């Protein structure tokens, strides 16, 4: 015992793009020398459909029709059969990242339905101003019961670079009821479809409070949210599936009134 095997990749942030060379070392260490039948390294990349626990049943129809799609697959033989000496042995390796055939390599992403292993887009700023009053709200049963309020604000852009935060400002001009909290809710909308139909699922992936308590009136509160690295990817639309993002501004008033304003976002990577 005491033999361990570790793969170390050179780049610290472990992000690679198509066409780049992935390099690193395989580290084998042990107290005694080890006999082996050769070492080979395989790179695999695939897209596969996973079944969410929430939507069992809805999906089974077309679950089987989508097979895992292989994007990358290559193997190299690193060492011929032989013996490793005791101590630490480092074997360097390099892999060019080439997409198999004519397929597109998407960014790695962990969603409910879709897991993508690694698109480029252009960014045009698209600022949005908004005003929220009892009158602008939909889905209200008795508008008269609502306390009066006026909230103004703007998002600097709904087209966002995924590595840059979502920014903007929000001003509570007036509010009869005391404000409890103002939050930013980042929602991911995944849509999967094929000939048999489609499924849509919205998930909250991050909730950030931007105001706590009865904030000062007419004083702008910053809107600022960093996109979580693991749960976001550039907005995607392909024949088989869609991944989209939205942000909700949620205002919680005392007496438990909940006001939500929705803004679709378009994420991209520059």
């Amino acid at each position, binding site marked *: 015992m005491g033999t361990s095997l570790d793969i170390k990749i050179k*780049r*610290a*942030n472990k992000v690679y793009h198509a066409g780049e060379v992935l390099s690193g070392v395989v580290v084998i260490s042990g107290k005694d020398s080890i006999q082996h039948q050769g070492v080979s390294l395989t790179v695999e990349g695939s897209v596969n459909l*996973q079944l*969410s*626990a929430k939507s069992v049943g809805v999906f089974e129809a077309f679950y089987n029709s989508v097979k895992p799609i292989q994007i990358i697959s290559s193997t190299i033989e690193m060492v011929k059969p032989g013996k490793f000496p005791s101590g630490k042995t480092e074997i360097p390796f390099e892999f060019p990242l080439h997409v198999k055939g004519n397929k597109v390599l998407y960014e790695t992403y*962990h*969603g*409910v339905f879709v*897991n993508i292993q690694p698109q480029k887009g252009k960014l045009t700023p698209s600022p949005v101003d908004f005003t929220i009053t009892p009158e602008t709200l939909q889905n209200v049963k008795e508008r008269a019961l609502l306390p009066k309020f006026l909230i103004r604000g703007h998002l600097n852009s709904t087209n966002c670079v995924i590595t840059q*935060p979502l920014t903007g400002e929000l001003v509570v001009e007036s509010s009869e009821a*005391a*404000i409890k909290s*103002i939050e930013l809710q980042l929602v991911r909308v995944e849509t999967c479809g094929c000939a048999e139909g489609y499924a849509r699922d919205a998930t909250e*992936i*991050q*909730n*950030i*409070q*931007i*105001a*706590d*308590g*009865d*904030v*000062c009136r007419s*004083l*702008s*509160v*910053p809107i*600022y*949210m*960093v996109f*979580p*690295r*693991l*749960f976001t990817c550039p907005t995607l639309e392909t024949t088989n599936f869609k991944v989209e993002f939205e942000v909700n501004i949620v205002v919680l008033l005392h007496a438990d009134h909940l006001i939500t304003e929705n803004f679709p976002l378009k994420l991209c990577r520059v």
Partner: protein
Amino acid sequence: MAVFPWHPRSRNYKAEFASCRLEAVPLEFGDYHPLKPITVTESKTKKVSRKGSTSSTSSSSSSSVVDPLSSVLDGTDPLSMFAATADPAATDSSRKRRDRDENSIIGSDFEPWANKRGEILARYTTTEKLSINLFMGSEKGKAGTATSAMSEKVRTRLEELDDFEEGSQKELLNLTQQDYVNRIEELNQSLKDAWASDQKVKALKIVIQCSKLLSDTSVIQFYPSKFVLITDILDTFGKLVYERIFSMCVDNRSVLPDHFSPENVNDTAKETCLNWFFKIASIRELIPRFYVEASILKCNKFLSKTGISECLPRLTCMIRGIGDPLVSVYARAYLCRVGMEVAPHLKESLNKNFFDFLLTFKQIHGDTVQNQLVVQGVELPSYLPLYSPAMDWIFQCISYHAPEALLTEMMERCKKLGNNALLLNSVMSAFRAEFIATRSMDFIGMIKECDESGFPKHLLFRSLGLNLALADPPEGDRLQILNEAWKVITKLKNPQDYINCAEVWVEYTCKHFTKREVNTVLADVIKHMTPDRAFEDSYPQLQSIIKKVIAHFHDFSILFSVEKFLPFLDMFQKESVRVEVCKCIMEVFIKHQQEPTKDPVILNALLHVCKTTHDSVNALTLEDEKRTLAYLINGFIKMVSFGRDFEQQLSFYVEARSMFCNLEPVLVQLIHSVNRLAMETRKVMKGNHSRKTAAFVRACVAYCFITIPSLVGIFTRLNLYLHSGQVALANQCLSQADAFFKAAISLIPEVPKMINIDGKMRPSESFLLEFLCNFFSTLLIVPDHPEHGVLFLVRELLNVIQDYTWEDSSDDKIRIYTCVLHLLSAMSQESYLYHVDKVDSNDSLYGGDSKFLAENNKLCETVMAQILEHLKTLAKDEALKRQSSLGLSFFNSILAHGDLRNNRLNQLSVNLWHLAQRHGCADTRTMVKTLEYIKKRSKQPDMGHLTELALRLPLQTRT
């Protein structure tokens, strides 16, 4: 053993003295002499290019007198030369650099947070029950919801960071303040533990949960202290993270310098750092997200150069989202604190914090806050001071090295807001004292306009007073300021409020006004503090008032003529405090009184003060305390002088003795003072006492004689007897001197074997030896009493020495006998070595009478017999070394004082020489030296017989 007779060598002291003296050679002008004064006849002042610095050099004109300093330097000293040659541009640029450094680095004039910490914890306390709510998300709670998807798991892990729905909820209720502090300390510890055991996520969780506590404003009066406690944890966390990332940058080869740039940071460290920021950015709640990010602000240095300067404004804006004004102002204080620490040059963010704060200022009077106060039962005047620590801190950060214009702008903006007392107070606590002082009248005006129901006015006056104690207001305004302020202060009903304010203003009054105003102020304080014995609760403040007054009035005649000063002292009725105050007064007196005084006002007052401290001494008083008190009282006694009125002086000493009888060092001092007085009288009378002065001197002597026995220390008594005896002798009080010496002799048997010196028991013999040698030198000149026998004092002393139980293992007794032998030799001379003016010693009394000499010789024989007897007893193995050295020392004595022309004495010395060398114990070098000395002496006139002696003294060769 045969009895050896003693034959003292006759001495001609005058001739010996003359022969020993160096020959005086007259010095010609121009001859070199090291002590000859250097006369400066030419001096030149050289203007050096640097303004304001002149260097003057001097050289001596007479060429023969060489001043080694000026000769080496050729006119210019190296420092001024250096200054002259220094490139003015270079010094300029270095000064500029220094100035810039001063701007970006916090100097020692910036009061650090650590100083404020303790003050806040002590001031903002509560007796109400506190609670801590911690939600540590645990895996158990999570297990209930089955999640199959891998992504969910990852999510869960992240959500745990601020999860509180399903995690283990730990709520601690009914905590006393102390419990709370302990809990927080425990959390701090578990944070460190978690970190040390590589549980980074747990550490982060603890920090998040702790900072969440800062959003809780229940038991609001404890909030400032809570802030202090929790930010301590945050500081710890910030440090841990920074150090960890810093350590990742350290390869085994290179260490990152303190001022590194992001390019030097390796990717792994950057990635780790970035990870922390991503993790923190995903914290759900605003307050913890803010605090945790602020705590690791410094880590931005790893990522980019501009990181901190981008982060600070963003965090500043983020605080706008905090609704509760108190919570938000403390968040600002924390940000300023971190900002000052990490990037003190980024002033804009500090200012932004201040202006943002002013924008939210109106919230304090809004419904939300007012409702909260009603629920908690807290009044506005006790709510508003809760803002002070945070505001003071923010103001202090901004005003540090800030230009005047900014301060003026800040003040103007504060003025515009209604009920600005709170702001005003912080302005006064944080801004430079000079700034405040020059605008004192404006401030008084603003304070007056303040709303009475809000921030307590006495706090405002207190803050103003603190500034005026540090900086001076314009000359013309001074009295008006005092009048205006005191008008308000004197109306304060609550004695605590009153005294806190008055304490501060006393300093200002003392600094700028005369005793009349100080008297008025003191009278006012007495008037306010006397009803219901209010002073009992305010001793520290009253003490501080006394300290301030005595610090400014160094002239004690003025101080004690302040009518209300002594009545003020009467308010200190608790003994320990009273003694403490008295000690302060005496310390200041000793420090500042230059001239001896006889002012009856000072004497009366200080005697009273000293008596108070003295009377506090009891059986339980510590030695150290007694020493301090005695030092202080002695300092006072030394400062009392009635000039030529010696009788008044003596009666003062008599009074002092009756007052301070419990402190031995004081009595010792008094005896010395009286002895001095006697000698002073003698000096004035030039040694010829009149009948009146003789009587006075005897009174002095009598004073000493009756005071000494009341002392405890045996050697103190012995030395004082001897000393006083010498004084009596000098003043021709012969029988009194005899009495002193007799007393000393009769005291010797009481000397214990061991005495206590500085708390350690030491053998006393060496001290006794020292004392006796000293005593012998005095006895030489003491004339015999006509009614007692010849040399009666020496005889009595010998008897006492004989009867004293000496240590068996020491030869001190023999050493003393040897000294006696020296004394007796000196006494047998025709004319003695020294005399006391106007006292006939035995030489002139007996005039070399043969009977006297015979008596003397008889004594010598007895003493010698004793010495030889002792030498014989030392002939045992273990004592041979002692025998040798003692024998040699006796040999030397004979050589110095004996007449070696006497055969028997000569023979004895030869025997002793052999004895010293017999067992090979003697030091050859000493023996050789001794022999050389004898040979040298033999060349002197009348010493020829020594040549023969030298021949008879063989040197033993070492085998």
